């Protein structure tokens, strides 16, 4: 093996790597927050909206789930200007992520809404709980418990997926890696370090989400 590893060349750019990671976190966090608003509205529309809205939402969900994210981002960044809407690469990246996570989110939230049975609410009423108590203990908490696992793994998927935004040169970690690679020509070293950074972020979120679940969302034991 005659290859000389030069990790130092890449580590010299550590401020760029750190800024890239931060951008990735901000981009994913923002996209998740806005995407959840879309998802909640969409789920309400799908469960109790008019027929035409349900069809429209079905079309949206199927279109997003059955096409690659890379094509979606190209449509928004390169395709929308044809309709007179010109976005910066960062805005286009955010919009593409929101549109994407919104479609997956609708199905998750809808499953959460449908997981609560009417009988539970009636039981709460007959126990003499006040409406606010019913909402808090019988609707909200079980619904969050039901969707929490898929919602949190959706966030990690979103964060990893955001690396595709480098294709339109949005500022995030993978684009920062591309930048450093073109300056140092240490392709393997750059992408190895950046992969480790993504993995560290995933592990961090896995741990944090599991801890939150243990502390606040513990299901009452059935025994």
């Amino acid at each position, binding site marked *: 093996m005659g290859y000389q590893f030069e990790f130092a060349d890449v580590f010299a750019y550590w401020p760029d790597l750190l800024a890239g990671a931060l951008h990735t976190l901000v981009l994913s966090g923002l996209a998740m927050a806005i995407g959840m608003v879309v998802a909640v509205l969409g789920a309400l529309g799908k469960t109790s909206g008019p027929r035409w809205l349900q069809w429209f939402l079905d079309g949206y969900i199927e279109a997003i789930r059955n096409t*690659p994210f*890379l094509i979606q981002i190209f449509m928004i960044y390169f395709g929308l200007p044809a309709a007179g809407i010109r976005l910066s690469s960062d805005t286009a990246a955010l919009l593409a992520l929101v549109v994407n996570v919104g479609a997956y989110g609708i199905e998750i939230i809808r499953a959460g809404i449908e997981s609560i049975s009417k009988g539970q609410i009636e039981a709460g009423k007959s126990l003499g709980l006040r409406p606010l108590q019913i909402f808090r203990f019988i609707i909200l908490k079980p619904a969050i418990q039901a969707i929490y696992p898929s919602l949190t793994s959706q966030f990690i998927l979103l964060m990893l997926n955001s690396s*595709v935004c480098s294709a339109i040169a949005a500022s995030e970690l*993978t684009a920062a890696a591309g930048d450093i690679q073109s300056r140092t020509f240490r*392709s393997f070293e750059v*992408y190895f370090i950046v992969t480790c950074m993504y*993995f560290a972020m995933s592990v961090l979120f896995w741990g944090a989400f599991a801890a939150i679940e243990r502390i606040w969302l513990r299901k009452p034991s059935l025994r």
Partner: protein
Amino acid sequence: MRVLSEGDILFIVTAVRWTLLLSMAAFIGGGIGGLVVALARTAEFKWLRFLALGYIKIFQGTPLLMQLFLAFFVPGIFGIDIDPWGAAAVGLSLHASAFLGEIWRGSIEVVPRGQSEAARALGLTYVPRMFLIIIPQAFRIAIPPTIGFLVQLIKGTSLASIIGFVEITRAAQIINNATFRPFTIFALVALVYFLICWPLSAYSKIMERRLTVASR
């Protein structure tokens, strides 16, 4: 800049064969690797289960794009020349191995324990026990999520365009650079992906519903 011609459209649409070929290569490679990972995850030895878990977590915790970049650059360290096609096929196969391994582990574990114990009591060794008793029963349960993952994999092949493999997404980019009709071109490509993925998604959903009804 030139006009978008019928030949250009034909070039893009026929490039779908590379998308399909890459998907197939990755699905076959991932199928073999996934079986190994699933068996390791359900093995009797703790270290083997742990090793497989580590493999799965690494692929679930890093972007597919990074996995493809590394598949492209790592062979160079060992002095092996790899073209974008090879890197994409290997990278996507390793990726699919992890995800299919985790899906199939779940399917294997759903098979009631008594089946394995009965096979053991009849004196069956590991290989016939797994391949004649457990896996045939796990197979049915595994179909819907496996097809669901196949859709993810087909969509994932679009990232091979970033490491320079000319499948349908890269073909579209090439034509777009010459003709600059992004809306038409990428909408066309989206439609092609949709026509491939949507029937698979629908089939997976129907199969899943049928299984949940059957198990009630």
